[in-house]
């Protein structure tokens, strides 16, 4: 009884750490800390650091939440079987 509960929680924590690392990387990393470095690259009229700060990070945020929804729904179904 104790063991499957633990697996569920551990897997959840694993998902969290991966997704939150990406969350940190695109916003605080690309958008802020490395923004000057990223700004050397350009897509269309956007400097890349600026693009991450004002557009890219927001798109990634949306994707991250839906990814978590997908992963957790799958995990829930597996655990409750």
């Amino acid at each position, binding site marked *: 009884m104790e063991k499957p*509960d633990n697996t*569920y*929680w551990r897997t*959840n924590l694993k998902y*969290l750490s991966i*997704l*939150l690392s990406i*969350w940190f990387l695109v*916003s*605080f990393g690309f*958008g*802020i*800390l490395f*923004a*000057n470095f990223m*700004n050397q690259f350009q*897509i*269309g*009229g*956007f*400097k890349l650091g*600026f*693009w991450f*700060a*004002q*557009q890219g*990070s*927001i*798109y990634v*945020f*949306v994707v*991250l*939440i*839906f990814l*978590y*929804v997908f992963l*957790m*729904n799958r*995990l*829930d179904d597996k*655990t*409750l079987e």
Partner: protein
Amino acid sequence: MEQQLWIWIMVGVTFTLYIGIAIWSRASSTKEFYVAGEGVSPLANVLATAADWMSAASFISMAGIISFTGYDGSVYLMGWTGGYVLLALLLAPYLRKFGQFTVPDFIGDRYYSKTARAVAVFCALIVSFTYIAGQMRGVGLVFSRYLSVDINTGVFIGMGIVLFYAVLGGMKGITYTQAPQYCVLIFAFLVPAIFISMIMTGVAIPQIGMGLEGADGIYLLEKLDGLHKELGFHQYTSGSKSTLDVFLITAALMMGTAGLPHVIVRFFTVKKVRDARKSAGWALLFIAILYTTAPAIAVFARTNLIQTVSNKSYETLPEWFSNWETTGLLTYTDKNLDGLVQYVADPEINELVIDKDIIVMANPEIADLPNWVIGLMAAGALAAALSTAAGLLLVISSSVSHDLLKKIIYPKITDKEELIAARVASVFAVILAGYFGINPPDFVAATVALAFGLAAASFFPAIVMGIFSKRMNKEGVISGMVVGISLMLFYMMKFKLGFFGGGTSEDWWFGVSPEGFGTLAMCANILVAILISYRTPAPPKAVQLMVDEIRKP
């Protein structure tokens, strides 16, 4: 006159709709009043969450701020969206599983202590009041600009309407009115942006348009950087704040977003734990539509504005210029008497002062769009301000009737009495908020942005530690919250209001602005909580079992 007529039509139709919905969906039990009986349809709930979140500030001021500060404005874009990732991953599903009405409910039960609950109620009230006063002011401003009544009359009308549907409908009424309010506000925000993007770049999607070339074949952003350099402003795409400050402000806004009681309470209204995660995702998607459009509007408006006015003869400026001059939001003084508009960074030479709120509101006029678009903007701005005010109002009334009255002072209260108490509390809250809207004390303007710092320094760590640590106990969390919110209040009063000897940006600790200080106060909260919890007894078995329970699927 035709423009005024359109405004009245748009505002009239949307308001009739809101009031009709409020009457149809009035609440009959405390459960309906606080969490809409947990039975709101997922789509309505998601739209309501988005409308609740996007306030007058997001709708009117944000694009303007970005327009004037360029890259520095990114803190709001990332901060007010990135918080939803934290919400969806770290808070919402567990709080829904826990299954109570309010944030202080969770703090009180998880930390088995009335003191913890009382501290949480206190924090919730401070955060919500600073926020709602700003909203009422926003309602007043919009009414006065678009309906040509004075600001105070505007605040009274706004008070009346919010009161009507919040008191009658509670969470249920608010949710069902916020859903159409979202549709109104997003439509009003997008229409001018799409028109302008088409005019300037030939592409209808503003998010793409802002990275394209203008009619002259030069990238808009490149041109803007060039214009800024020429006029002595800092570069548009790189900004002027220090990296450390940008980092800390963004973090404080994110953590504050995830800790704001009126946002969290939304996830108590969904049916299942799964729905809580999914709702957060859809809510962020709907919010992201506005938040990714805002920086595009900022770029279009900035380029347009500089090209229209800079070094042009005052006599030949278009009509919207003089329209907005009469409101006092735009002022021109011909310092060197050459009849031209010098718009530069140097305040000695600069002749044009522009209020940031103009950018969004005057956008349709600057781009020469039809009058019905301007009517739509008025309805959208009002929807944004009213929906946020109503959501906050509910948090305040439930804090008083549920957390304070039922759970602390008078536990024997019946459901019916509690419902009456909740309604009475919301009447008082509206009156108080309206009072602050009409007589805005200086601290309101200073503290609205800082409400996030306060939430980050108090609620966010308390809730997260309550879920992710079984060892965290009441002694630790109470001292953490008290230290966090006191530090934040102290720093805010010292550097924003000039108490405790005041100080300028030279005196900021480690060069951190008050807006970014919430992150440091949060770290202090966590540190104190951990240190104290390990020197005091572990929480009782029952509480540890409760934590196990909320972690299960």
